[in-house]
């Protein structure tokens, strides 16, 4: 009888390194699959366009959009602004509205969720305002705020504000009663429990709300720039419509998509950093 092969004993560090390497490999595999998925999608799209399965006047090919992307870096025609100016104008509108929504919406939701009296006072108004589509504010916004940045940011604010409030409200409502009672037993005041227990425990939901708000902010961009604009990605899309240029429309859509994905990734990193203690 031969003896069983001797198994190598791994140290704790080696085990951790092995697991981390495996995790990294899986992440790389998923990233590669994602990239392949996008490339396959673009390839099918390009072939369908080149083969004439789809009319290029209704759906421009990816190669055409890429060429236009290069052209728009320096050429302001036909919408009147180069791509960089359009991106900056849109960033200004969407981020102003988005950050305003965070600054106003999250504290409002937290206070509504923690203080019953405040909730009774504010919630009926919030529930009335909540279902109103942001675009329907456009006529009044023009009268109240004019046609500049505040007006456009207000439209974006409205779309981003609602998820901030709802998630902050739900998050703080879900604070564990055990933690609250423990804090009370330790003699903490209501505000201290709100500050040190309620808010930290609501953060996961709050970040989920911020993610939704970010998506909404970008989604409302075209509507906000419908109000009045001389540059911006939404404006560029509208001009694409004005001159029957599907390539211009698709370029605007793609750029909005890429910026949205970039911001979501940045937000994910911020969330990991802020909520690292929870994971």
């Amino acid at each position, binding site marked *: 009888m031969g003896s069983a092969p001797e198994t190598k004993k791994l140290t704790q560090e080696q085990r951790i390194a092995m697991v981390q390497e495996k995790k990294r490999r899986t992440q790389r595999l998923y990233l590669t699959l994602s990239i392949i998925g996008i490339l396959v999608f673009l390839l099918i799209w390009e072939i369908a366009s080149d083969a004439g399965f789809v009319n290029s*006047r209704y759906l421009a090919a990816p190669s055409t959009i890429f060429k236009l992307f290069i052209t728009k870096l320096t050429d*302001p*025609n*036909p919408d*009147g602004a180069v791509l960089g100016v359009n991106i900056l104008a849109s960033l200004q509108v969407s981020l102003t509205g988005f950050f305003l929504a965070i600054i106003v919406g999250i504290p409002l939701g937290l206070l509504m969720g923690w203080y019953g009296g405040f909730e009774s006072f504010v919630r009926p108004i919030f529930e009335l305002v909540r279902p109103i589509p942001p675009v329907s504010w*456009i*006529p009044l916004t*023009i*009268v109240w705020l*004019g*046609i500049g940045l505040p007006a456009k940011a207000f439209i974006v604010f409205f779309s981003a504000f609602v998820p901030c409030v709802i998630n902050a409200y739900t998050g703080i409502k879900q604070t564990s009663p055990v933690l609250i009672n423990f804090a009370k037993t330790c003699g903490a005041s209501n505000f201290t429990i709100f500050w040190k227990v309620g808010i930290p425990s609501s953060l996961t939901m709050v970040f989920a709300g911020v993610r939704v708000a970010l998506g909404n902010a970008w989604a409302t961009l075209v509507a906000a720039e419908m*109000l*009045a*604009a*001389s540059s911006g990605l939404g*404006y560029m899309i*509208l*001009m694409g*419509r*004005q*001159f*029957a240029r599907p390539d211009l429309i698709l370029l605007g859509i793609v750029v909005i998509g890429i910026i949205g994905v970039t911001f979501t990734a940045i937000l994910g990193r911020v969330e990991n950093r802020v909520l690292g203690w929870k994971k």
Partner: protein
Amino acid sequence: MKKLIAMTLSLAMVLSLAACGGGTKESSTPAPVESSAGTDVETAATTFGLKPFETRQTLRVGYFAGSAHASPFYIADVKGFFDELNVDVEYEPFTNGPAMMEASSSWDVATAGAAGDLVGMLGYDLICVGVADYEKNMGLFVRPDGGLADKNPEDWKGTTWLYPTGTNAQMILGGELNELGLSFDDIESVNMDIASALTAFKGGQGDGIAVWNAIATSAEDAGFVRVDDAGSLDITVFNGFMATPEALSDRRDLVKMAWEVYYLTWQWCNESDANMAEATALYLESCENEGIACDEHTAEVVMGYYACPSVSEVYKLMTETSADDAGLYTSRDLLQAEKDLLVTMDFLISVGKYTNENRNTILDNKMMDSSIAEECIAEMTDMGVVFK
């Protein structure tokens, strides 16, 4: 007893025919006149002397809400001119040309401004078969106390103008700036639809607006000063009568009928003051149906400006040819209507919105088609239709 049964059956038949005849319209369209379906089509006398279709047809109209050039369709519908020809009218209302062109699969014929026509031709292969209007009521408005009414070029520099870019409104503003020795670089342009532009202007935004039709009249009524307009600047603002390629190939007779009724209705409007007053009231009614702000005075002004050509005039515009004024297109002489459309096209090329390649596409593909005008005139002459 037999008489009673016969009367009851007759009544039931009449009611069922009436129900069949009036059920295809959109909610915003007028109440149809009593259907004539079932009448002897060969012998039926029609207002214009046109021959009715043997079977009931449905004409889908892309309706430019609030525009005078769309009103002949509505007037003909309410007056029963279509109904007596065995045609039902279905409306697809729009408030801007590009959106109308995008949705061209939902209509057979439509009227729209040159900017919309160009989008339709270049983006959706739509064909222009007639001239709907030469819009004079497209104006520039400033505040009475803003100092711009004096048209001092120095005062105009750095001012903010609200208007829909890429439209005839921009062309009119361009014409004014040109007169003042300025360019678009000297002012700030903000893209807004005309209704929003007027709202914002009333709210103190911007230094001037470029708007048309009922909104232009409303701006004047609000106390703003009309600095200039298409008429005073002598700029041709073309509006086309458009048809879809599908309608032209599959429902050509219906398109021709629509063309004939459209121009003959305008002829009817001009026959007497009473007819014009009725047409103006119907224009106001159509605005109310479509939610366009308008009152009696505005309706009168808008219809007063409406410059739809007569049947003979549109025939000339669609058939007489001469060389391209710009000298750019030499393959053939151009129709007068083509040259009028190119006024807007050439302006939009000059501000970088289109290219000469786009211009050639329209001309090479003969997207201004004179055949409908020719066939309609031949038909009307054969039928002995009186037209001017």
